[in-house]
């Protein structure tokens, strides 16, 4: 077996083992339970949630914001690293593309879950009011889904052609499908030129579209005159937070795939070190924006803002607030400062901490503000003064997270998670130009 064949063998998708099957089965079960809860929510109405007149956005919206943030990993790694010619990106770039697509698709679903009447979804387009950030969100999410798909698909073409050939004898059905999806890719000069130009266009597009997505998401909040949201810092704050959430998710998934697929030779300590440095820089930027967001209002805040800040720092939300700040941000920075902390296993722990911190961070961005209106909450039952998700909300939310993981799992099952062609080229295993010419 040549080195090239050995590389294809290593990187080609493989059938799941026992662990993979159990993992997929668990995800499917969680999704089915969530689906049942969602059907019940549609049947009974949103009364099954704990959202009421004041807390009218709850866990669904915070989960949506989390998905949107995580989807930024595509822009953060693929585009930024490509445009800055960082060659270490190769083994992690496809995983980032997969996470990006899975997250943005699930963000779209999650927003529909939050709708009381999803059957009226089309009205969002028919009666769109262009002044509303909600309309901008409705436009930018499908746009991001298309872009994330193209971002994943274009670089995949050569690999799909390789897989077609690889599976020709052993798995003819797979080979046929890979062949169809590879769009008759032969690696000719003309094809390469078109592909390369297209990827460049996508890489350039991904950055402004990604920033637009995060900013619009932030403007959903900051354009409303509400305590905790009414901030000019919000767009940059959300974008820097998205870098952190996306990279945290990427590091976690990269570690798991590396371990499960035995890709230690391809995703090395060097790559984790680079990812760690990248995450460290983004975490520091996020700390800076957090200081802007929380510290400045302490100096000049009106009384209402003070109540809100006190609830976050000392009050009902203090646990979640400090968890997201310390576990999700400060501790990762401290760990990543040390070389030992930038090794794969500590990085997995950091990745999980960052993802959990990021998820809860979105929760405390959304909920406390709604429960601190300018006018006192009056004339409603006492339970409406508080919000904590109901069982339905938890089941559905966990199901959306499971769905995102299932999408990632299925992509990992059927696609090469590390670009084969590019890796072969970088390792000098292919004389691509000559082959293409012949």
């Amino acid at each position, binding site marked *: 077996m040549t080195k090239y064949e050995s590389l294809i063998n290593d990187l080609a998708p493989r059938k799941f083992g026992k662990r993979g099957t159990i993992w997929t089965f668990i995800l499917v079960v969680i999704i089915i339970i969530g689906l049942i809860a969602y059907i019940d929510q549609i049947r009974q109405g949103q009364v099954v949630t704990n959202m009421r007149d004041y807390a009218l956005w709850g866990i669904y919206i915070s989960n949506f914001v989390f998905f949107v943030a995580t989807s930024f990993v595509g822009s953060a790694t693929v585009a930024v690293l490509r445009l800055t010619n960082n060659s270490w990106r190769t083994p992690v770039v496809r995983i980032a593309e997969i996470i990006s697509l899975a997250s943005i698709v699930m963000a779209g679903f999650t927003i529909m879950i939050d709708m009381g009447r999803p059957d009226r979804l089309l009205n969002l387009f028919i009666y*769109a009011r262009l*002044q509303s950030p909600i309309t901008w969100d409705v436009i930018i999410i499908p746009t991001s889904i298309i872009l994330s798909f193209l971002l994943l698909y274009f670089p995949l073409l050569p690999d799909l052609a390789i897989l077609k050939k690889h599976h020709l004898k052993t798995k003819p059905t797979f080979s046929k499908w890979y062949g169809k999806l590879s*769009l*008759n890719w032969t690696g000719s000069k*003309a094809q390469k030129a*078109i592909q390369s130009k297209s990827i460049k266009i996508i890489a350039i597009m991904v950055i402004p579209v990604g920033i637009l997505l995060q900013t619009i998401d932030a403007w959903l909040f900051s354009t409303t005159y509400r305590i905790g949201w009414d901030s000019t810092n919000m767009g940059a704050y959300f974008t820097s937070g998205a870098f952190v959430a996306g990279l945290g998710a990427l590091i976690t998934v990269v570690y798991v795939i590396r371990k499960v697929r035995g890709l230690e030779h391809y995703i090395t300590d060097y790559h984790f070190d680079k990812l760690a440095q990248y995450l460290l820089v983004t975490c520091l930027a996020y700390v800076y924006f957090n200081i802007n967001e929380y510290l400045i209002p302490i100096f000049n805040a009106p009384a209402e803002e003070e109540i809100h800040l006190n609830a976050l720092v000392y009050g009902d939300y203090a646990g979640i607030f400090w968890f997201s700040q310390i576990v999700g941000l400060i501790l990762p920075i401290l760990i990543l400062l040390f070389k030992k902390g930038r090794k794969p296993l500590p990085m997995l722990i950091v990745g999980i901490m960052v993802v959990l911190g990021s998820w809860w961070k979105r929760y405390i961005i959304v909920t406390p503000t709604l429960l601190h209106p300018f006018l006192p909450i009056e004339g409603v039952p006492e339970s409406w003064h508080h919000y904590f998700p109901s069982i339905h909300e938890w089941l559905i939310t966990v199901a959306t997270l499971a769905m995102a993981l299932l999408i990632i799992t299925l992509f990992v099952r059927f696609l090469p998670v590390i670009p084969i062609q590019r890796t072969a080229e970088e390792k000098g295993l292919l004389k691509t130009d000559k082959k293409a010419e012949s």
Partner: protein
Amino acid sequence: MKNRSTSRSAFLVWTTGFLFCLGLSNIYAQNDEKYRVRLRADYVKIMEGDAYLNIKATAKIEDETLPVPNLEIAVYNEVEGEEIILGNTKTNMKGESRFLLNKSDLKADSTNTFNLGISFKGNDSFKKASKSTSFKDAHIEANLISKDSINYLTATLKETVTDSLLVGEALDVQVQRLFRPLKIGEEFNFTDENGTILVPIDKGIPGLDGNLIIEVVLNDSDSYGTVKAIVNAPVGTPIVDESTFDQRKMWSARNKTPIFLLIFINLTIAVIYGLFILLISNLFRISKN
């Protein structure tokens, strides 16, 4: 030895279970104490409009007076010891309810007094309660007059059945406003021997198109309840409309989107989706090559 450890474990499990159940019973135990509801019923009559009872239910719970929502209340008319049910109503989240009265259904006693009652029959949380209110029918005749270029509001208060003038009653004169009415005239405008008041209307009171809606109110009288007459007086200063309703603003309706926004968003969409079309056509070009 083994038996001993098994029985110890069983005891531990039993004790834990027992304590857990104790905790549960504490959580789910019903609070036997029933609260006392305080009802209030105020009769209000709008001249040439509705007459209704304003009902309010409150209860003192843990030293705090709170409104009682969703309380089923029966409204009845007491005539010579007989209670004629007029209907039922339910309090809202503020513990309030407005029960419209059909004047033709109401019967007065021999002194021309209407006796209305409200009652709540009690439930798991609150004791039964009732409240009655009595009133005679009165009416206010209000008019706008002009003397020596000064506008006045004149109003006469009479008892309806006897058509007798009511002297020495205090009437409020006020202009309707969004949050609370704007009082005009003296603090107390007592009816004279003709049962009449005369209140000058200041110049310069703003109103939509110069129209003022002026109320003359006999407020919460022991004998007559609240009686209100409304007069439309085109004697105010017109409010200059500064609304941007018809302008293209960020807060306007969808058909009034600012031009710059229309151009910017549509241009952005056109550029992005134009590139998408180019990219998808590139996929076709790749497959053809």
